[in-house]
Structures are given as C-alpha cells and as structure tokens.
C-alpha cells in the first residue's frame, strides 16, 4: 500500500459515504452539508490525479457557488416539506434496484475492458498555462468557451427573471 493508495481510499470513502447520506437523509440541510463533504472528497481525488486547478475550481464553484445556492433554496423553502413524511417517494425500491443494476453493469464493464494505460506520462509543469491557452485558442476550445459565456449570461438573466417577485 503506498501513501497515495491510502489517500485514494480515504477520499473515495468520504465521497461515496457522504453521497449516500445526501440521498438518504431526511433533513435536507444535512443532506446539503454532506453534499459539501462529498465535493471535498472529489476535490481530493483531483489532487491525487494531479489536476490541482480543477480541485480548486471544484471547491470554488461547487462548495462556494452551487452548495450555497442549494442551502439558500432549502432555507427559503424549509417550512414546506413535512418532516414526518419519508424522504423518498414510492418508486424508491425500483430506483434503488435499477441503479444497483446499472452500477454493477458499469463496474463489470470497467473491470472487463483491457485499459492500455500501463505507463501514463508525467503531467507537464505548465499544465495550467496550457489549459488557459487552449480555452482561448481558435484551434482549441474558443467557440465552446464563448458559447459557454453566452449560456452563463442567458442563465444570469433567466434566473433573475424567473425568481424575482412580481
């Protein structure tokens, strides 16, 4: 067992157990906080994958942005959901079965395939600079990048229009 393997097991255990809590907790605010924990676990996995920038983005966007939004929504609508009702709907057994089946199929496929990755190369030191360049490179991802900014702009206006009080 190398140190990294142990770290991997810890991070994935955090991610998966917290994710299980997210989908089973009755108290939605607890679920959201476990979701934050799960996102931190995923950020740890990114660090192990030598993608520190993505780990930072993960914490920044998911924890700072999305989780906060979700907790706000929970707080604003908290009196609505009756806490004595079960946290799941009637199709939860069917859903669990389908997802367990899907999960086993996925794992079976992953383990059955011969991945040609015996010796992946090193991550170049200027990986972040390259990522920055490729995003605004006409040969790279300039068009998707601009489309994304249009999407975000549309979302900005759309979210305000939908949610504002009339």
């Amino acid at each position, binding site marked *: 067992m190398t140190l*990294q393997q142990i770290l*991997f097991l810890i991070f994935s255990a955090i991610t*998966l157990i917290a*994710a299980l809590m*997210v*989908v089973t907790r009755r108290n*939605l605010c607890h679920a959201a906080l476990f*979701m934050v924990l*799960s996102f931190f676990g*995923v950020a740890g*996995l990114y660090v*192990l*994958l*030598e*993608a520190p*920038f*993505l780990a930072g983005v*993960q914490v920044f966007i*998911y924890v700072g942005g*999305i989780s906060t*939004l*979700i907790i706000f*929504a*929970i707080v*604003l*609508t908290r009196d*609505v*959901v009756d806490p004595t*009702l079960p*946290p*799941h*709907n009637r199709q*939860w057994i069917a*859903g669990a079965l389908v*997802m367990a089946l*899907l*999960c086993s199929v*996925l*794992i079976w496929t992953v*383990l059955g395939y011969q*991945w040609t*990755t*015996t010796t*992946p*190369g090193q*991550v*170049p030191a200027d*990986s972040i600079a*390259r990522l920055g360049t*490729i*995003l605004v490179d006409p040969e790279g*991802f300039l068009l998707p990048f601009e489309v*994304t900014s249009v999407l*975000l702009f549309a*979302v*900005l206006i*759309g*979210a*305000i229009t939908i949610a504002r*009080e009339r």
Partner: protein
Amino acid sequence: MVYGIPLEWYLIVAAALFCIGGYGVLARRSAVATLMGVELMLNAININLVAFWRYLEPPGTTGQAFALFVYAVAAAEAAVGLALIIAVWRTHNTVVLKDLDMLQG
C-alpha cells in the same frame, strides 16, 4: 498506474457516485434533493473525464477543458433549477415533485 492507483479504481468510484446520484434523482420527494442528485451525477462524470485525461493523455488538455465546461453547465443548471424551485414555491407553496402535476389536466 499513477502512484500505484489503477485507472479502474477511479472509474469504479465514479460509477458508484453516478448511481448514488441517480438514485437521488429517482427516489427523492423534494425538488431540491433531486437537484442535489443531479449535481452528484455531474461530479461522477467529471471524475471520469479527469481520470481519463490523467491516464490516457496527460500532456493534452482536452479532459480538463471538458471538465471545466461541465462545471459551467452545472452552475447554470443549479441557478436556473433553483430559480424555478423558488418560483414554483411562490405560486404553489410546495416543492414536492409529486404535487406538481397541474399539467396532467
């Protein structure tokens, strides 16, 4: 292998996370909880993208760039989704998905 961790480990974690998120989407009553399930699924996809980038083409940038686009779309989806939930809550005073069946006629 990177640091003695095979690619399969990451893929298995991602698959499990995806399925847990999917269960959340299928089985939760509250719309906000469903949205949380979707976020978990998107995270699973991102783990896959970054793992494939690291193990298959570390000098390239495609995997990371795709992950960044997923982030943007996830943020957009959360913002619009929660705005819709707030709007629905204002008009119908519920966020339970089962009760939102006005379109059934």
